[in-house]
């Protein structure tokens, strides 16, 4: 029976690499099964489990992915797996979090700035008081 090479990669690491006779992937529009010599196909996959039939083994190999992209070529299959659970809303929430972090750090800066200003004002006031003391002494 013919085989195909399967690679599951993510940004952080190579998750799986090996031969397979048959693969089932949770595509966005429903599960798809791929045999060797499949026509080139590109599709997104949902978070789920990849099932593979591996030559010389009755057990299926299972690889869990949190979504990503499936690229099918006649003799090899690449899964570009996401490392984090993704979604429009979730990404949006993360973006807001990052913005908030930036604003917060700036907030601290203004706090530091106002502290510095207060310190400077205090120094001026002390200097003025000292000058007054000095003048009083001279008058007496």
């Amino acid at each position, binding site marked *: 029976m013919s085989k195909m090479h399967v690679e599951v990669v993510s*940004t*952080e*690491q190579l998750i799986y690499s090996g031969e397979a006779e048959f693969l089932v992937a949770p595509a966005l529009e429903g599960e798809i099964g791929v045999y060797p010599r499949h026509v080139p*196909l590109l599709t*997104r996959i949902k978070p789920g489990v990849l099932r593979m039939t591996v030559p010389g083994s009755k057990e299926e190999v299972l690889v869990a992915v949190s979504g990503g992209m499936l*690229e099918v070529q006649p003799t090899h299959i690449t899964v*570009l797996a996401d490392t984090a659970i993704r979604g429009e809303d979730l*990404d949006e929430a993360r973006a807001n979090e*990052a913005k908030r972090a930036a604003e917060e750090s700036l907030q601290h800066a203004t706090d530091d700035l106002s502290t510095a200003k207060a310190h400077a004002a205090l120094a001026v006031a002390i200097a003025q008081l000292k000058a007054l003391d000095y003048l009083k002494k001279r008058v007496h």
Partner: protein
Amino acid sequence: MAVGKEILTKIRSVQNTQKITRAMQMVSTSKMRKTQERMRAARPYAEKVRTVMAHLAQANADLGHPLLARRDVVKRAGIILVSSDKGLCGGLNVNSFKRFYAKVKELQEQDVEIDVCCLGQKAVAACQRARLNVVASAVQLGDVPKMDKLIGPLTVLFKQYAEGELDAVYIVYSGFINTMKQEPTLEQLLPLTPQHMVVEHSHSWDYLYEPDAPSLMEFLVKRYLESVVYQALAENMASEQAARMVAMKAATDNAGNTIKQLRLVYNKARQAAITTELSEIVAGAAAV
């Protein structure tokens, strides 16, 4: 005899410092190997995404994705500044910041406004000092680069670019060349330069798309950019550990030299004291 008690105290304090720097050196030596492995592990993904993306772009030349749009006039630019969270790593961050400030100055001279996205504590501090507009930031990144932490800040920038608020996006980080050499690197992320889109061997076949080419393209472009930034962060972390190891080794060696010199001074002082005492005794005996 209490000769040179201050010197002994000093020696002890330098020895304590040396213990710390030596420990830090060993810690970063062991971390360095791991960070380098991680840096390499990130490469296959970026390469694969780039190939698929290039192919897709070639098969569908007229894909009008907002992230691929080119702008003729640059009015506002985004810069992603990558730094370490902690200090004590020699001139690593300073060198990156110099490269960054040079670019900022160049852009400001062309009347380009700048938004900065900071990755790492030191970058945030540097941008505050320079009074730059920080639109997004991620700190406390740890020793392992995590995609999870990058998605937020990047989404902010890419969204702005897609909406036309930003006309270019750059990234500044410390590139890892080898253990002794790290080089501040500036790259243009957006608009994508044509060299990103070259396929080595062009075929006349095309994929079947599910659901359709444009939405897949959007997905790929995003993932590609994210992987580039991830790679930059991983490289910056490897550089950080290498720089820290070298800096701490130098510090340990310096501490050793200082101790040697102090010992010499101490011994001399002690010997001088003994000699004086002896000559006093001899003089005293001679007088009697």
